[in-house]
């Protein structure tokens, strides 16, 4: 991978972590926040495909794992799988408009949060109530859905010059 791409993606991830902590975590709806680092992973999958999306998802998840108190590696695993599946799915469907990007961001974020709760249960973390999981999935999905077009644009910038760029004209 081009070192400049790696540097730009790294910069995007650190900036996302700072934005998450300093801004998005402060603005909650029913105690649910946007998940900007997950969004970075999903946008990477949309822009650069499943393999690179999975790598970015893994790194972004590790960055979250370093800042929260939950089994270390579980967020990395969840983000990595979510990005891979999204990137893989994107190769199978016809790519569409800004609205379809937002819907994709919503669905992928919601499923990733459900996945995080399920994986947590598998490694011994007590799962929240189904109602809470649903609330978090829907609200975080809406947050991330709204932010997806901007995230894709930022990821396009980070990946410019790379052969793997997929969403050049969105």
């Amino acid at each position, binding site marked *: 991978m081009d070192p400049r791409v790696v540097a730009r993606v790294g910069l995007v991830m650190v900036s996302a972590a*700072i934005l998450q902590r300093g801004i998005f975590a402060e603005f909650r709806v029913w105690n649910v926040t946007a998940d900007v680092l997950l969004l970075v992973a999903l946008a990477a999958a949309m822009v650069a495909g499943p393999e690179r999306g999975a790598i970015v998802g893994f790194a972004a998840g590790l960055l979250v794992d370093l800042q929260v108190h939950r089994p270390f590696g579980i967020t990395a695993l969840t983000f990595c799988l979510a990005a891979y599946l999204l990137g893989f799915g994107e190769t199978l469907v016809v790519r569409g408009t800004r609205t379809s990007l937002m819907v994709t961001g919503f669905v992928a974020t919601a499923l990733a949060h459900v996945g995080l709760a399920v994986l*947590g249960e598998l490694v011994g973390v007590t799962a929240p109530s189904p109602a809470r999981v649903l609330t978090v999935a829907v609200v975080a999905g809406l947050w991330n859905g709204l932010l997806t077009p901007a995230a894709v644009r930022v990821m396009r910038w980070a990946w410019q010059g790379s052969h793997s760029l997929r969403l050049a004209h969105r």
Partner: protein
Amino acid sequence: MAFPRRFGRRRVTLVLLILTSVLLLTLDARDFGPINGARSGTMGFFAPVGDFFGTITRPVANIWNGAFSYDELERENRQLRQELSDLRSREVQDGLAVKELEQLKTSLDIPFANGMPSARARIVSGGIANFDDTVQVDKGSSNGIKRGMAVVSGAGLVGTVVEVADGFSMVKLITDRDVQVGVKVVEKQGFAILNGRGDPHRLSGAVNKVSTIEVGDVLVTSGVEGSRYPEGIPVARVAAITLDEIAGKNDLEADVLVTLTDLEFVSVILVGGA
């Protein structure tokens, strides 16, 4: 045959990432030191940045969060009105309300921390992710704080210190799904274990069927041997008791005494800890 080869490479990458995640989960489960070190280092880097941005955004965020917590504020308002009404009727009945008020005032001065050294700390950031019931405070190892120490506010138990950096600490709230607190009611029979469930207001638990604990009782930390919390810290008020005939126990629902969503300052009790 580029297509299958490409798919094959993708799968190898994915499998490697999954295996790495599983390895990290295993190492963390075994309390692998470098992971804790990396967490402390990351917190030392991001906490001041979060504090800086938080100072700027918090006034607007408070208005925003207030708008989305309207139901919660209304519920608290109703509860407070009810309590006020109860107090007034008691005053009329036997004139003891003044004395009770004095007792209430005394309880706000953290009498449960009497004689125990503590460090006053400001909350600089809430949990950064969903399903993350933690807060970060602006005191750390340089102030004598260690992992496992209890954190309280004037109204009662807040949580436990789980990560410590030089000038910051991460506190896991009692409402976290993995937190268990041993509790009792002063001068009543029966101990209970309360569990967090990710709800910022409620805890649940169980108590022996023969226990004399009733709805409205205030539960305090039991302080039994091996407990990480000193004895006598108020935790929650019993909201409901349901008999579980099959298990032969009573299920408890309890309202957390501290308003965890609106905390600014806490005290870390500098006793115990790892």
